[in-house]
């Protein structure tokens, strides 16, 4: 299976695109996804934090990922 990851804010700048496709065999959990993204883009590891959202909710590292999920990297938010 492959995954599509949406990128916002500084993560979009780091990756250089608004989305990134991870082809099969893609990470199967949030934790694996973060590890893979940090391996490809070490600058992500320098952020204050980087969460993963699955279907618009903050997801724990052990949450499984599916191709139909809406997945996004969430760098430190700064609304308000």
């Amino acid at each position, binding site marked *: 299976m492959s995954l599509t990851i*949406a990128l916002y*804010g500084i993560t979009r*700048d780091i990756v250089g695109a608004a989305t990134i496709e991870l082809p099969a065999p893609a990470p199967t959990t949030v934790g694996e996804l973060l590890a893979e993204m940090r391996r490809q883009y070490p600058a992500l590891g*320098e952020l204050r934090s980087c969460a993963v959202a699955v279907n618009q909710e903050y997801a724990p590292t052990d949450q499984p990922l599916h191709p139909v999920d809406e997945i*996004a990297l969430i760098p*430190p*938010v*700064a*609304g*308000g």
Partner: protein
Amino acid sequence: MTRHLTITDQPIDVAAALAAVQTEAAGAVNAFVGTVRNQSGGRAVRRLHYESYDSMALTQLGHVVAQAHEKWPMLQAVAVVHRKGTLALGDVAVVVAVATPHRAESFAACQYIIDTLKQVVTIWKREEYEDGTEWVAAHP
């Protein structure tokens, strides 16, 4: 409880947000208005850019308002409007307005909503200075 949650690239009408929460049953309205400051961490700010993951921002904002309603069941109306896009100095970036029958709860609920919004709502701020730009809070 009535809720009005909006993310918009248009200038925010603060009076409309306040009017949206006023009722004859709730005597107290508290509103927080965040505007673009001319400095940040000692650096002169020229303007701001807000980027939003809209659908998640509204989902999370819904959670925040639901939590506030659990904490203060007397909460009768909430309006939150957040701007996105490019903002000039002095522009309104966010308005939170709440209505309750009693005063103290209006302050507590409004402060809870803006404080929690800043922690969880998926909006990012890029400040523009004389000599460059920076994603706010991105790095330690």
